[in-house]
């Protein structure tokens, strides 16, 4: 046990500290961008003109229907070979990871937003239009705030998933938590300690995120839209 604590304080914590920071640099922008993409795509799927609905549907099917690791490889390894005239786009590992996670997360988020939008009674839009709002004002001021509250538990779950699948970034050489853990494990051969501790780090991240999402849900709660206490 003592041995473990020494290993923990001298090797793991310092090593994970850097990895943790990198994980956060990947997770936070991916979660925010993913939510934004999800909201835009979700709204377009419901209220957009037909062709736009088709395009967003296709986006969602593509990104939900292919393995995330394939998407990550595509953005990191394949994108540089696609020529836009003279140009090609080369992403560094963190950029490629954030792009993949945002697009994938956005596809799932849009599902929750879409069903949230569907749960708002059409009559409220009619009432908003009857007051002289444009459709876009009605969607922004009346439908979205309600749909967002209804979608929040689902969207929160997706962010929890995102925290966990962010570990895939290690495969394209991002030295986030999992990448760091791999390096330490290779050098120390103390696999049990390394990976159990790694698990604890993710558990802590997920716990903090869950708690923050609760706070957000409570802050947005109005009668009729409370969090379902379980």
């Amino acid at each position, binding site marked *: 046990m003592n041995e473990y604590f020494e290993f923990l304080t001298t090797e793991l914590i310092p090593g994970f500290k850097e990895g943790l920071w990198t994980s956060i640099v990947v997770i936070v922008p991916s979660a925010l961008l993913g939510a934004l993409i999800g909201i835009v795509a979700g709204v377009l799927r419901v209220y957009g003109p037909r062709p736009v609905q088709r395009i967003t549907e296709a986006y969602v099917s593509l990104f939900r229907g292919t393995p995330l690791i394939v998407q990550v490889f595509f953005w990191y390894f394949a994108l540089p070979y696609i020529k836009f005239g003279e140009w090609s786009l080369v992403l560094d590992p963190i950029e490629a990871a954030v792009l993949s996670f945002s697009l994938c997360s956005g596809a799932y988020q849009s599902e929750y937003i879409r069903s949230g939008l569907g749960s708002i009674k059409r*009559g409220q839009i*009619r*009432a*908003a239009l*009857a*007051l*002289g*709002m444009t459709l876009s004002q009605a969607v922004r001021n009346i439908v979205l705030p309600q749909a967002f509250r209804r979608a929040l538990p689902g969207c929160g779950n997706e962010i929890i998933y995102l925290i966990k699948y962010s570990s895939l970034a290690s495969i394209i050489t991002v030295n986030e938590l999992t990448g760091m853990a791999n390096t330490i494990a290779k050098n120390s051969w103390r696999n049990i300690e390394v990976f159990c501790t790694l698990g604890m780090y993710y558990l802590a991240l997920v716990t903090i995120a869950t708690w923050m999402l609760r706070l957000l849900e409570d802050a947005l709660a*109005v009668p*009729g839209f409370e969090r379902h206490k379980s």
Partner: protein
Amino acid sequence: MSAIDIEKNGDVPMLEAVNLVKTLGGNRVLDGVSLALPKGCVKVLIGPSGAGKSTLLQCLNFLLPPDAGHISLEGRRVNGGSKRELCAFRQKVGMIFQDFNLFDHLSALENVRVALIKVKGMSKLEATERALAELARVGLKDKATLYPANLSGGQKQRVAIARALAMDPKVMLLDEPTSALDPELIGEVLAVIRDLAQLGMTMIMATHQISFSASLADEFLFMDKGRIVEQGSPAELLGRGSQSRTQSFCAKISELTGVAGEACELGDIKA
């Protein structure tokens, strides 16, 4: 509009619809409906379920754009194709729905205020003041902070009325404003509507409250199968000895509900 203009426009109806046609799902739900609402008059739409009353009211403010026919407000024809014009028109035409359609995530105050801010561009302060005044008018000033989930049906409908009135409409369209209410809550909503009529608001209301509307209406419009088949003052249509379809329809309703009976007896019918 100046006093002189009003004088000049004295005979131009506030709201006029000419030959409205609407087909829904292959059904000709409105089959050439024309009506005129002079300033300050109250017309009541009655008729069997499926007659097209709700469809007509929704066509009047283009929530359902009519397939043919046209609509004028104070003599000016509304161009339903222009978004800008539609929004301006709808501000002047208040609508009350059977199931209230309050915005569920907003308090009573915010429900009334939101369009003042977003549509009329009022400051938050100004809008709040106006909204509170409208809530006071429907007797709900002390419920301003409550959310729809915590309001009774009658209170919800009164908030919806306050919300519409805050926009300073020139006409109100009411689609069965009390049909979704428990009997003991109907009275408080009808009282608000009666006040409005007495203040000279131009209104058209679909309803099954025969007795109430007979005491209020300048004219009854009886609709069936997408047409207005009878129209006239309550006294003409419901008076003793009248053979009108309106009369027999009302008698049928009163048999079912047992309340409209005295109305058909011409209790306090507006002549």
